[in-house]
């Protein structure tokens, strides 16, 4: 049956297969107690970064626009998700349902951010999106850093100084300016992370392989040709970009609810670049590459701890990144891999 399917849907199925198999293996190892505490603590953030990488790949690889502020959308999702989850703490006692609502709200806020940035900027030609998203990420970081948000019986209170928050006796301050969100109850689970990865894969792969997805890729490959056959540039660009931003918001909500405190500075330019590194190393437009690169590169620096090389750990990580970048672009090595795997054809590595 698989033989009869198109190449794209076969490749998509394999992606689901990889994620499900890894999830089952991890669950078995956890059940058997054969997994270190450290590795277990990395699972949920790794899921978040995988979703981030897949969603950024939609913007960078499929749409062909450079976004340097993906962490800004993650930040929006994280803080809106945390506020929603904390506000609903008494109304909804089930953590799983609260997490679901928080992730949906995170996705909505991420999407709104995407619309705000995308509507004016995606009409322009050139690298404007890179510049504007870069600024957007910094603006979000600085705004959240000065905000104090609390909740009490009267609803949400937002101020720029703690003394102006005016909470009632039973009110709680959720976001405390530069401290970020403090005292968050951790409700994220690895299973939720796994489901989010699968949902992201379903959304992105179906979008890419749909009529709309082909229009988006046509815009990437030749804008003038695409416009000449009647493809609306702004509509399709906005579709891809907002989907990407909303998924980043969902990942942010899962991420924020995995730690008892989260500061806005966590979602800075470096985080955006980190995700971009995952995408570029995994291959532009290559969704499976994004998944593997995000998982391996996120876990790698923590694995290096076991070598007891404290000061040089991050240095070695950087060297590994450079080596991977060089090796994956080396024509001789590519030819060598071509010989080892005989069926490898040119063009096979594109959109999978």
């Amino acid at each position, binding site marked *: 049956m698989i033989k009869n399917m198109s190449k794209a849907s*076969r*490749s998509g199925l*394999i992606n689901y*297969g*990889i994620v499900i*198999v*890894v999830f089952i*293996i*991890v669950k078995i*190892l956890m059940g058997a*107690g*054969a*997994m*270190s*505490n*450290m*590795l*277990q*603590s*990395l699972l949920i*953030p790794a899921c978040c970064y995988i979703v981030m990488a897949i969603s950024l790949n939609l913007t960078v690889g499929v749409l062909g626009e450079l976004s340097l502020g993906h962490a800004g959308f993650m930040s929006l999702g994280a803080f809106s998700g945390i506020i929603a989850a904390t506000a609903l703490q008494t109304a909804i006692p089930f953590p799983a349902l609260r997490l679901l609502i928080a992730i949906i709200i995170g996705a909505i806020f991420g999407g709104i951010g995407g619309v705000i940035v995308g509507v004016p900027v995606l009409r322009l030609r050139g690298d404007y999106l890179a510049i504007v998203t870069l600024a957007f990420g*910094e603006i979000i970081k*600085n705004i959240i*850093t*000065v905000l104090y948000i609390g909740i009490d019986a009267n609803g949400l209170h937002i101020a720029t100084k*703690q*003394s102006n928050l005016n909470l009632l006796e039973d009110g709680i301050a959720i976001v*405390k*300016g*530069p*401290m*970020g969100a*403090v*005292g968050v109850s951790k409700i994220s689970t690895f299973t939720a992370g796994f489901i989010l990865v699968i949902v992201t894969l379903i959304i992105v792969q179906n979008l890419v392989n749909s009529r709309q997805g082909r229009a988006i890729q046509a815009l990437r490959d030749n804008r003038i040709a695409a416009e000449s056959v009647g493809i609306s540039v702004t509509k399709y660009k906005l579709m891809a970009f907002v989907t990407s931003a909303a998924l980043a918001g969902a990942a942010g909500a899962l991420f924020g609810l995995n*730690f*008892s*405190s*989260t*500061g806005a*500075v*966590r979602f800075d330019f470096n985080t955006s670049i980190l995700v971009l590194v995952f995408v570029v190393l995994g291959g532009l437009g290559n969704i499976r590459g994004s998944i*593997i690169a995000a998982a*391996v590169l996120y*876990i790698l620096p*923590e*694995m290096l*701890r*076991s070598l*007891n090389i*404290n*000061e040089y*750990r*991050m240095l070695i990580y950087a060297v590994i990144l450079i080596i991977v970048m060089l090796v994956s672009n080396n024509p001789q090595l590519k030819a060598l891999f071509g010989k080892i*795997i005989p*069926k*490898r054809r040119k063009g*096979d590595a594109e959109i999978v």
Partner: protein
Amino acid sequence: MKKVISMLLVVAMCLCVLAACGAPSTPSTPDNSGSSQPSGTTTPPADGAVVIKIGGIGPLTGGAAIYGIATQNGAQIAVDEINALGGDIQIEYDFQDDTNVAETAVSAYNNLKDWGVNIIYGTTTTSPCVTISSETYADRYFQLTPSASSPDVTAGKDNVFQMCFTDPNQGVTAANYVSEEGLASKVAVLYNNGDAYSTGIAQGFIDQANTLGLEVVTEQTFPADTNTDFNVQLTACKDAGAELVFMPIYYTPASLVLAQASQMGYDPLFFGGDGMDGILGIEGFDTALAEGLMLLTPFNATATDERTVSFVEKYEATYGEIPNQFAADGYDCIYAIYEACQQVDGLADMIANGDNAALCDALIAIFTSGEFSVDGLTGLGMTWQANGEVSKAPMVVGVENGAYVTK
């Protein structure tokens, strides 16, 4: 076919990664010096001695590395001293890098748990510490931080104690000092509103100043990212007629503030918090600019008491620099843990069984008993309150002729 092969390869790779690091997390026995040999211990433990595993967390790389390295080194000196005594309690010490990021701190902490840690020392910086303290609270590990100063670190967690003053307390102490000494009646506050430490102290200072009747003529802020030009803020302070500028900020921006104030001919009294400690050591900084600067710091490296002199000597000999207050806080932390452990009944059994929860409860009882006090480099007769805050006498130093003088 190729797809199947690549999928199998991915699965195999994941299995390798997971299996390689999937060491079971059973607490290792004290005399088991396994593969993860900590960097610290130089003397082999004496026979029959109890070996406590203390795990430290702090930034060893990145922008906050100087604080993490100082706390790591200060504690290392205390560990070496205690192990050299050859007493009943020996310490195994490991320090993990968290790059000042909360999520990295969590994996550093879990790495220590896999190592079989008994007591957590750290974390050095505040925002990772807020995350880690709720982890240790859930897992019941005793935690003592040298320098994470936000009240959020200890709020609602009985197992977390601080060696440093909390931020608001530092602000209150500074306001009290300014008022009691009659240093000024009109004060300006200049702080970094992108930094929890700075805003915490400033808020405490302003509240206390209002209570004491000090007039806060202006509050000036700057963001965490752009802190090189302070002319606007200084002009505002000058126009408001401030006689004293309170700036609870780190020493790097503070050195620029002092230089720019001197350029514009504005010469109020500058007063800083403990983050100002280190300003005299900046390369290329004209110490004449800092003349008259006052700061709150728990530690003065030029003090002449026996312990400080010995500590500074050892630190300089080993690491080639003058220790700052972070190193001294770290040193005191290890001694506080050591002295408390000496009072724990059945310590050997708890360690042998890996019963960290019992050890945690025993240490909490000792720390909050009111009778437990520690004499350290950063204060004499330090005691702890039930909420985890330290009680010790604050110290104000002034800069005279390019050196600290205790006021």
